[in-house]
């Protein structure tokens, strides 16, 4: 060992000796963190264990109302997507069809359509929320009047469980059908994304939006149907969980914290490929009217749908789990 090493060792030993001087006593340390106080709870969350029943009922009322509102807004979004699909497939898109009664729906931009659907969904959420709160209150009143065996807390839990399946199924399907419908509208039709996609003259060597949409409408219908099937399966598993008191492995997997990031990643990949392939309804530049293959576009629809499914399901199930933890379900 060199002289320098000896010096380092000696200095470290000196530091060790110095640090052992004037040490605080255990009593002093205990006092500094309040260990000697008799009124200190034995566990930090002990004081939170006895929550008054009234507060729990308020929380239950909110959870129930929010679940009903989610189901209602999801149903509204699903109906809107179905209406748009039918209108676009069998009705307008062609600028020449202005004389039809639905021309006000197809004539404006996609931003207008998105805003319209958003307002409808929000309205459904607010109205359903108000109605559900009233229903919850009335059910509690009736349970007290009739002197039922089950107490208000049991009744509240039962109502929340009853709304669980609907909130999951309609919430997931609503968001997904809306996203798929608008995603396809933007990507397939949108020569100029997020702007007027109809107010263009496509007669001179350009692709008709109607023919493009008709080509893709099969994909949209299949994707929405698959989403509905997946949402129903998830909803059934959630309802079954209340009966068996066991959570299935795939629900636990979807609840996992990595589900949402995986969905976001998949969505980013899909968007990147979509943007690089999109030629829009107005073919410009050297690419002309060369379109990506139908299989590739179907694959993009599937991967986009799967990405949205992962994100929406992840958020829905994580929120549901937190609600259950809060309610002690």
């Amino acid at each position, binding site marked *: 060992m060199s*002289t*320098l*090493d000896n*010096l*380092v060792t000696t200095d470290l030993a*000196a530091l060790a000796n110095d*640090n052992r001087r004037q040490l605080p006593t*255990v009593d002093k340390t205990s006092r500094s963190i309040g260990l000697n106080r008799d009124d200190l709870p034995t566990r930090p969350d002990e004081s939170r264990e006895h929550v008054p029943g009234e507060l729990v009922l308020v929380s239950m009322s909110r959870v129930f109302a929010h679940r009903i509102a989610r189901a209602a807004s999801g149903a509204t979004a699903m109906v809107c997507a179905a209406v748009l699909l039918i209108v676009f497939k069998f009705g307008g898109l062609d600028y020449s069809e202005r004389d039809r009664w639905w021309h006000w729906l197809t004539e404006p931009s996609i931003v207008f359509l998105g805003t319209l659907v958003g307002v409808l969904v929000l309205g459904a959420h607010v109205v359903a929320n108000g109605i559900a709160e009233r229903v919850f209150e009335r059910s509690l009143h009736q349970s007290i009047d009739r002197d039922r065996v089950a107490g208000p807390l049991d009744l509240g839990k039962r109502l929340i469980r009853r709304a669980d399946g609907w909130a999951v199924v309609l919430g997931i399907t609503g968001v997904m059908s809306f996203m798929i419908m608008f995603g396809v509208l933007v990507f397939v039709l949108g020569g100029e994304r997020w702007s007027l996609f109809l107010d263009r003259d496509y007669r001179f060597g350009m692709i008709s939006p109607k023919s493009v949409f008709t080509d893709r409408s099969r994909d949209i219908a299949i994707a929405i149907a698959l989403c509905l099937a997946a949402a129903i399966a998830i909803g059934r598993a959630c309802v079954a969980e209340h009966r068996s008191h066991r959570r299935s492995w795939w629900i636990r997997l979807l609840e996992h914290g990595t589900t949402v990031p995986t969905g976001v990643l998949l969505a980013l990949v899909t968007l990147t490929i979509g943007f690089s392939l999109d030629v829009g309804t107005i073919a410009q530049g050297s690419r002309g009217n060369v379109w990506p293959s139908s299989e590739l576009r179907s694959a993009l629809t599937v991967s986009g749908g799967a990405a949205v499914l992962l994100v929406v399901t992840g958020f829905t199930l994580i929120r549901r789990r937190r609600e259950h933890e809060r309610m002690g379900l």
Partner: protein
Amino acid sequence: MEPRNERFRRLIEPVHDKAVAFARCLCRSRADGDDLFQESVLRAFTKLDGLRDDGAFRPWLYRVVISVHRNRCRRELWRRLIPFGEVDEASEAGGAQISGDYRVSDWSPDAADATQRARAALAVLPAVQREAIVLFEIEGWQVDEIAALHRVSISAVKSRLARGRERLRVFYEKQLGTAGVPSLISGDSP
């Protein structure tokens, strides 16, 4: 069931003094070390329910100390990078000495106090090497114990020790020069 306060007191009593000394070694000053230890003890107390095996209290407490220390280092780094918060007097004075807080800039070959030299030298090491050096050289822990504490392999700990030791040697060499070392060993220096 044993009350939580009594359980914590029973567990901390045998390791208290060594843990305080360890916290002091990690910091640049004794006062900082005491502060670090107090914060660590508070955190350990609130997380005590997570400790199932009382026999593992010592490495668990040391792990808490290390975690709190690393958080502090990170906070300090952010404060330096984004100086929008409170600026303490030491930073304003350009790292001057305040209440026994030794910094690298204070180190000189004339430093008579071996403690002062060791503190300044340890301050230049990265946190993981400093922890390994302190545990091995000062606290007398075995390499496998340190590996278990840091949840790394034994070879990783050996590598940290070797690199830390090398950095200390280089630092001493740079600060002292070759001429300063023998005089310090023999105690001729003021």
